[in-house]
């Protein structure tokens, strides 16, 4: 028996087991800590604030839930959204996120811990990321062992692909959904392995939680049936599969239908038909198995086999038929856009206008996953090597999620856990191989290796969190699992390994091991650095406040959004309706607390198109639209002064496109380009462009700021022609410090019944063609 480095000889089995367990717990706590800490950049660099757009709605809904209770929340009709339509909030959201925060809030307040609901919302995502790490650990443990589990937990804890949606303040459904996804998958694997109805039901309960939390639940709804189907096709049907699947499907589907937003979708839409079909197929197969166990004729079995196929095909046919007959809703547009990336651009511009619905750019795979990108295929290959039921699951997951991640940026999120799991399997296998002290047969002398062995463990202890703890734990865990009770379990393990068939191939010597492991740790260290860097620089900006540096180099915060929203909140009438592009609807509702025409819940395309039309038409056309919708204020985002590129002029083409979709005669995209087909805002801009409300509101009095110098738009690097556009139907009401937010008040109809344009001309002292009667009337009024 030869080992590459000396092993301690005086350890009892219990010591090894306990130490391994302790180290695992410590490692998991450290991983949780790292996962939470790495998400706090936004809080430390800025403040405890809700980020971006959708989270503001979730936050607002949570406040309603926390202050008014669950029933009020359930029946909440929000008259301020989608003015004048309103929105049935309780029935059009996934309430899981708000319910989670509400429960946490109530528990804390029950114990008289006065934690602000905002802080709960801000810190919910980091907290759940720790749970995700744990769920991933449990999942990976089922696939390989604890050490791979710890690696996977560490990966998922800090990988940017997941952090991007779960930094502190990013209070969105995804914050809790990834934990639920992983935990449901873990419970499914567990149920499948043991054929346990208990775990199947648990999986169903967490599936229900997932349905209540995120629209992406359809991913589970289809992943599990596909897995079951593949297992059947591989000839791996078993009563375990039957029990697990049936308990999951029956309980899961029934409970998921309790969510009002989901309702009867699980039995009436195409997205859910795969699950139903596989459920039916399993019943048929189970029945066939039952019959087969009673009848032993081979022909009969064959017949039955074909009968199963015929029934299956018939079932699929029935589903298709029902779809055509209208009983089952066909695939929705969002699903079509998953298969045809050009679909959304052609038919549903609203979906296409969202940046996170764009196809993923290749560099973002590396940015979000770094070294996991190339460990991931290796892990999948290793799954093929073992190919138990759960490995089949990971393989399917890997294939499906890889495809989706390539189609849509935001679906990178569903790929990330799978990548972490597969990479952990690959890396853990690599480390198993090289940490294993057993030498192959034709060994050389093993002198002077012992102190080097110490240095390996030393390097592991000082290495990164992701590397150190799992490796050590693995070493001890492997020993703990394999060794019989004896004075030296590690030696026993080595003895057992070398006592088997003599190995001809393997790893010789300590130097080889050391080199490979050093390299591995180096990669892991770089991974940690990369994750930290990406998280801090790319994913930790609240986008409500912008960071910049003042001339003396000190950090400076550009806070125009909150300035304008708070001005609206404090100094306008409480029922003043604010019109803006839908991106800012949730923020206005959350921060300014004013009714909005459209918001980020883009359920009514026509309403959005109306806003788009008002923005893209001339004042004369837009004014009746504004008045018809009781609009008091119009809010535009203008980045031209500061160089903030996410402004409304840059989004203007989408407004035009969406408006054109509803009013193709009145709004035409081509009219907003120069004759040369360029999108410009300088003097070459088309007349329609210059007369559009959006253009006028953006550049109103902009050139005056520059005095005699040419007015430079810093986003588009173009010179704005003088004089600035004038507004007849709107008054500038507020402009923020850096001109990012500009708010205009819509004039009411003239008191004297004149049209506003001539009234303005009169006020401005310009002579009207038939001036005298107007003058006389005005004097009479005074």
């Amino acid at each position, binding site marked *: 028996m030869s080992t590459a480095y000396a092993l301690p000889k005086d350890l009892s089995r219990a010591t090894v087991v306990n130490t391994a*367990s302790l180290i*695992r*717990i410590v490692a*998991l706590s450290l991983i949780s800590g790292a996962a939470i800490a790495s998400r706090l950049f936004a809080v430390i660099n800025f*403040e*405890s*604030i809700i980020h971006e757009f959708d989270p503001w709605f979730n936050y607002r809904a949570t406040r309603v839930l926390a202050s008014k209770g669950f029933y009020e929340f359930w029946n909440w009709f929000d008259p301020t959204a989608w003015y004048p339509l309103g929105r049935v909030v309780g029935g059009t959201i996934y309430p899981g996120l708000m319910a989670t925060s509400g429960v946490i809030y109530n528990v804390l307040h029950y*114990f*008289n*811990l*006065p934690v602000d609901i905002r802080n709960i919302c801000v810190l919910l995502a980091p907290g759940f990321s720790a749970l995700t790490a744990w769920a991933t650990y449990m999942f990976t443990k089922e696939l390989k062992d604890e050490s791979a589990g710890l690696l996977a937990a560490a990966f998922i804890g800090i990988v940017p692909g997941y952090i991007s949606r779960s930094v502190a303040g990013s209070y969105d459904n995804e914050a809790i959904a990834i934990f639920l996804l992983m935990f449901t998958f873990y419970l499914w694997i567990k149920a499948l392995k*043991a054929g*346990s109805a208990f775990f199947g039901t648990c999986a169903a309960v967490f599936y229900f939680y997932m349905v209540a939390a995120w629209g992406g639940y359809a991913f589970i709804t289809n992943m599990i049936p596909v897995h079951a189907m593949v297992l059947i096709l591989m000839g791996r049907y078993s009563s375990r599969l039957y029990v697990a699947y049936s308990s999951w499907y029956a309980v899961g589907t029934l409970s998921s239908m309790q969510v009002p937003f989901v309702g009867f979708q699980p039995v009436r839409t195409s997205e859910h038909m795969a699950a139903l079909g596989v459920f039916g197929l399993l019943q048929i197969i189970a029945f066939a198995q039952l019959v087969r166990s009673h009848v032993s004729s081979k022909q009969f079995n064959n017949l039955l086999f074909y009968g199963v196929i015929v029934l299956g095909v018939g079932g699929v046919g029935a589903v298709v038929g029902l779809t055509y007959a209208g009983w089952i809703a066909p695939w929705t547009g969002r699903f079509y856009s998953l298969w045809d990336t050009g679909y959304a651009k052609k038919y549903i511009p609203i979906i296409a206008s969202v940046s996170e619905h764009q196809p993923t750019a290749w560099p973002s795979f590396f940015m979000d996953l770094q070294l996991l990108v190339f460990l991931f295929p290796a892990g999948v290959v290793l799954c093929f090597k073992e190919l138990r039921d759960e490995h089949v699951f990971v393989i399917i997951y890997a294939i499906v999620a890889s495809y989706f991640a390539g189609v849509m940026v935001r679906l990178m999120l569903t790929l990330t856990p799978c990548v972490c799991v597969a990479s952990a399997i690959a890396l853990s296998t690599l480390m198993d191989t090289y940490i294993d002290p057993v030498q192959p047969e034709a060994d050389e002398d093993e002198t002077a290796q012992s102190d080097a062995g110490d240095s390996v463990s030393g390097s592991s202890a000082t290495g990164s969190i992701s590397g150190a703890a799992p490796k050590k734990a693995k070493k001890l865990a492997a020993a703990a699992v394999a060794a019989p009770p004896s004075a030296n379990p590690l030696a026993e393990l080595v003895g057992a390994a070398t006592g088997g068939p003599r190995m001809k191939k393997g790893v010789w010597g300590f130097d080889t091991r050391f080199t490979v492991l050093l390299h591995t740790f180096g990669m892991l260290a770089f991974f940690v650095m990369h994750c930290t860097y990406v998280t801090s620089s790319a994913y930790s900006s609240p986008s409500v*406040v912008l960071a910049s540096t003042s001339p003396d180099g000190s950090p400076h*915060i550009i*806070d125009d959004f*909150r*300035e*304008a*929203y*708070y*001005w609206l*909140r*404090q*100094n306008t009438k409480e029922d003043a309706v604010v019109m803006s592009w839908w991106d800012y609807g949730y923020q206005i509702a*959350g*921060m300014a607390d004013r009714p909005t025409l459209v918001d980020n819940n883009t359920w009514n395309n026509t309403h959005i198109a109306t806003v788009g039309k008002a923005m893209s038409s001339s004042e004369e056309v837009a004014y009746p639209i504004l008045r018809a919708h009781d609009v008091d204020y119009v809010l535009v985002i203008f980045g031209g002064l500061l160089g903030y590129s996410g402004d409304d002029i840059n989004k203007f083409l989408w407004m035009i496109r969406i408006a054109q979709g509803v009013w193709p005669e009145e709004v035409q995209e081509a009219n907003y380009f120069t004759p040369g087909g360029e999108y410009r805002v300088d003097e070459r801009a088309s007349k329609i462009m210059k007369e559009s409300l959006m253009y006028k509101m953006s550049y109103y*009095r902009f050139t*005056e*700021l520059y005095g005699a110098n040419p007015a430079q738009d810093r986003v588009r690097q173009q010179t704005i022609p003088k004089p600035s556009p004038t507004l007849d139907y709107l*008054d*500038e*009401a*507020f*402009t*923020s*410090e850096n*001109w990012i937010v500009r708010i205009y*008040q819509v004039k009411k109809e003239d008191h004297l019944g004149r049209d506003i344009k001539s009234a303005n001309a009169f006020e401005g002292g310009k002579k009207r063609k038939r001036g005298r009667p107007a003058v006389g009337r005005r004097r009479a009024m005074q």
Partner: protein
Amino acid sequence: MLLPSLLSLLLLPSPAVLAVANFENTAVVRSIELSGTLTHVATTYAAKALVGNVKTYSIALPRLEKERTSFFEVKVKGQNVPLKAEFDWDSFKARDYDVLRVTLPEPLSVGATMNLVLETVQTRASRPWPEKASQTETQSLKYDFSLFVISPYETLVQRTKVKLPHPEVHSFTQPKDVSQWAQDDAASHIGNVITYGPFRNFAPSASDVFDEQQTMQIHYPYEYPLVEIASYHRHAEVSHWGANLNIDDNIHLRNVGPELRGHFSRLEHQKQAYSTKRVSHIIPGMVLHLPAGISNVYYYDLIGNVSTSHLRTAPAPAKRDARNKQYSTLEMRPRYPMLGGWNYTFTLGWDSNLADYAGWDTTKSKYVLEVPLMTFVPSSVYTEASISVVLPEGATDVEYFPPFAPETQSVDTLKTYLDTTGRPRITLAYKNLTDRHALGTIHVTYRVPFLAHLKKPIAVSIAFMLFFALGLVGRRVNLELHSAPGLKQKTL
């Protein structure tokens, strides 16, 4: 109700009482200092006793003036101790003046003289005129007051000086038909002072028959914004475990200058930064003085941190007496410049060392706590203010001494931060607080029994023990119907 009616029986013929003059005012000088929302009025009465052994002196205030007055103090000139002064109970009668009865420090003998000074602060006595102004226009205020200082006693000579913030004045009213008291020009404007009077040989004017009173009006430009704190809530929480006094102020700021006519233009606002002529009625921000030695200062509004504000903290003073001399400075800038009629709400809070505010009174063996009444925003009026002081859980024998009589006061229990029985909370409500109230402190004395200190740790440990006990039991209860050999669940 019985007591006042008895008193009224005793004192019923009050005009008669006033008619029997105890005093004669040899000279009355009133000086009015106009400064935006607050107007400081100091009236000096040089009085001569006509009868012996009089203990009270009556000061009459016109009803309008009394309603504006939020603070008054009567002192003997040159002394610092305020005298006891109370409004007469029969002020409720339908008269257009109220009588303030001042208890003199010692009874005066016949012919003795003394100088009494009545200092009052009037709130919102000046109002913007014109009531609306555009962003670039200047601000002017109007102040009106009654020409004569009325008194139940005969006044030999009286005069009123109005101090303006600026020599310039738009207009001021000339008194009419005053020839019986004054010889020449009754009103004159020199520098930044407008003088009315002197008016000589004034009969007792605080009576129902006097109807010569005139209302004077001064229209003057004012170059500073008018700030009002529409509501102010202070929450002071004492923690003995943390040796900490946390103060949390909820402030609703309002610009009560002329209302903005038209709209706010950022362009004009940014242009003004380069022009020499400052626009007076815009509040760009304010400098607040916070105590020295504070930590964890926060200033946020309903949607987060007010990133436009900055703080400079001063270290804690070495000696306790030095506290008022040093202060931390908060450059409080609202998110947007506040134009006329605009509002801004924010929250300001900090932690400070409890030792700076509380001590142990060995004679009574009680804790003594001293909580400042408010954070003062310069030259502003606090329309509604409530101050609550939260004592440690289990505090007993709570006594409190407000610096000024509050409108309402209450003591209740507040449950917060892992409390089991709750903490006593004292709440005082005030109206129209001014700079004269700014230095007031609420004194609270209380005891905290030793066991009350331990209440929280005990409660928390019991809760954790219960939790662990449940865990202990839960892990040892086997709910499996039959043991499946393959299902041995391996735990972490």
